[in-house]
């Protein structure tokens, strides 16, 4: 299996300008981590073009695989997008793992939170039904653990190119000359405003 990392080593920020997340993972690197998450991106998904391979793996440094899997499902319950593959939710786990690696108190909060999720789901949260997962998440709303994970979701899940592609947001426009010649007024299902309200563009 060819594997990819979710993003480059040490790069907490997403890449600009369409750079692809890559870096093959070696076997040696696999063994270093305390946990590993695996997944695949469906062939034919627009996101597949962002990855050199449909398969991905995420090495965890502070969290074990079970915690990683639980947090991934927690993220998916909080922000359920059928159009997004697990690879996007793995970005959340990656960021939480990095936070846990830098802050033992936070690591403990996450480990404890994972146990509470399991408890609330009456078994392994990550294997529970969608209804049970939702009920468990609701039960934890208002806790610091919930706030940590939900807050991280805002950037982990929505500030990355896979999500942008899935939602049709193209990101930067400067290198393409903006939208003055690329559809900034191409909406056709409503009448165009009169020129007094919206004069024609200056094209030079």
């Amino acid at each position, binding site marked *: 299996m060819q594997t990819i990392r979710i993003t480059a080593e040490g790069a907490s920020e997403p890449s600009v300008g369409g750079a692809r997340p890559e870096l093959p993972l070696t076997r040696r690197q696999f063994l270093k981590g305390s946990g590993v998450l695996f997944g695949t991106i469906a062939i034919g998904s627009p996101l597949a073009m962002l990855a050199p391979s449909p398969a991905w793996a995420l090495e965890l440094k502070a969290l074990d695989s079970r915690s990683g899997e639980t947090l991934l499902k927690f993220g998916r319950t909080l922000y359920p997008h059928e159009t997004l593959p697990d690879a996007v939710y793995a970005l959340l786990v990656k960021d939480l793992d990095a936070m846990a690696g830098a802050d033992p108190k936070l690591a403990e909060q996450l480990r404890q939170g994972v146990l509470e999720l399991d408890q609330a789901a009456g078994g392994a949260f990550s294997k529970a039904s969608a209804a049970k997962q939702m009920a468990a998440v609701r039960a934890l709303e208002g806790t610091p653990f919930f706030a940590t994970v939900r807050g991280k979701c805002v950037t982990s899940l929505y500030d990355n190119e896979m999500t942008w592609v899935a939602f049709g*947001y193209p990101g930067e426009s400067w290198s393409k000359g903006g939208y003055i010649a690329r559809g900034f007024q191409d909406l056709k299902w409503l009448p165009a405003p009169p020129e007094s309200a919206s004069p024609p563009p200056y094209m030079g």
Partner: protein
Amino acid sequence: MAKFGFDDDSVVVIIGSGAGGGTLANELCQKGIKVVVLEAGAMQSNASFINDEWKSFAQLAWLDARTTSGSFRLAKDFPGLPAWICKTVGGTTTHWAGASLRFQEREFKVRTQYGHIEGANLMDWPLELRELEPWYAKAEDKMGVTRTHGIPGLPGNNNFKVMYAGASKLGYKDVHTGNMAINSQPRDGRGHCLQLGFCFQGCKSGAKWSTLYTELPKAEATGKLDLRPESHVTRIEHNAAGKVSGVVYFDKDGKEQRQKARIVCVAGNSIETPRLLLLSASAMFKDGLANSSGQVGRNYMRHMTGSVYAAFKDPVHMYRGTTMAGIVRDEAGLDTRRGFVGGYELETLSLGVPFMAAFLDPGGWGPDFAWWMEHYTQLAGMWIVGEDMPRETNRITLNPKVKDKYGNPVPNVHFDDHPNDIAMRDHAYTQGERIYQAAGAIRTFRTPPYPSTHNLGTCRMGASAADSVCNAFGQTHDIPNLFISDGSQFTTGGAENPTLTIVALAIRQADHIASQMSRKAI
């Protein structure tokens, strides 16, 4: 770039380089006056601006610690980020959307117009519209405001098409692509708008006016400007006669410096400006500089704001083109039958996916939130901005419990919405939703206020030294060589985006300062 000595006590020191400070600097330099601009932020350029919301935010935003209190929703949603303003050369003119509207005549005399309103500290400006009109005209010419001085309006994008269609169906008449300080055609050495869609992230084409690449280089060309970026002022000093004599600041190497001055003008935006006056308290001025009225830091206004987003069954792609692409002005007038005093504007607004996730519904989660994010390309959006009530208890104070890296107490921003603000917001939400429903929306959403971009009123101008901080020229009542040069001067907020008024006041203030200097009055 000129270099003036630390001991040169003939210079005018301006703190801040945004709409107020940057404009004032250029106007004074053009008159041959030596100016030292101390800007806390670093130098950027059109080339270094980033078309990426979070990266740009990290590059431009003022992120020094601040605290919040009060019942406004921001205190819960963004307790450490009450304002979304900038720490960079050019200040918030790098980030602003470009809307450049004049105040309406009545908005300069709201105490007279509205009468006494419980819980509001209304006061008439010591200025009337007709006095400011020539300065507005100069400001519009300087900034290249569309639909003034023969400058054509900007072309409307898809987001505006939706607003226009809905607003017209509702019967609104004053709907167009606005008065924007964005070049619709090349002007003043800058190119035309390329419809990049990243107005908030610093305009990479330079079509949008910012002091960074208009006023400041023009000032520099006179040989009279000494601009010092990454220079954070922590104290204004005064002499035994009670006149200000200079400022203390930390330079880019973290080294403390002391710059002497003939005149000090404070333009640090309405949170830092009063904070600096309060931090400069001395044996002579125990409550802070220019604060004999006790009004420094009070009457903090942030405009009544909110947003409405709507989803349609067909694509909109609102992110394409100018962020604030059009306006409905019909609700800006006074009509108390609506259940409130003052008025509001409706202006298109768009956020990218990263900021939509952060601001659509702060704290929100679940399938409904996910639904809105997935419909991103089918959304249209507008911002509502209206006159809010000044209140003495809405104020900037020093928070002794939290210190910044220089060891100074950080500002606390306290705000409680006035019932009038709430009534106006409800009305505007309803009208915004009706506009989108008239255009065929399948769903609408009421987004709460973003961290404040329009921060006003904390050193208000007024006719009397007893209840205001400065006079109609921004000159403080207590200290004649200390000026307020930003939106802190506003007596009340009006419904309009404040930058044009800040620039007009700065041009006018420059004339006043030059004349006082030549008459040796200061």
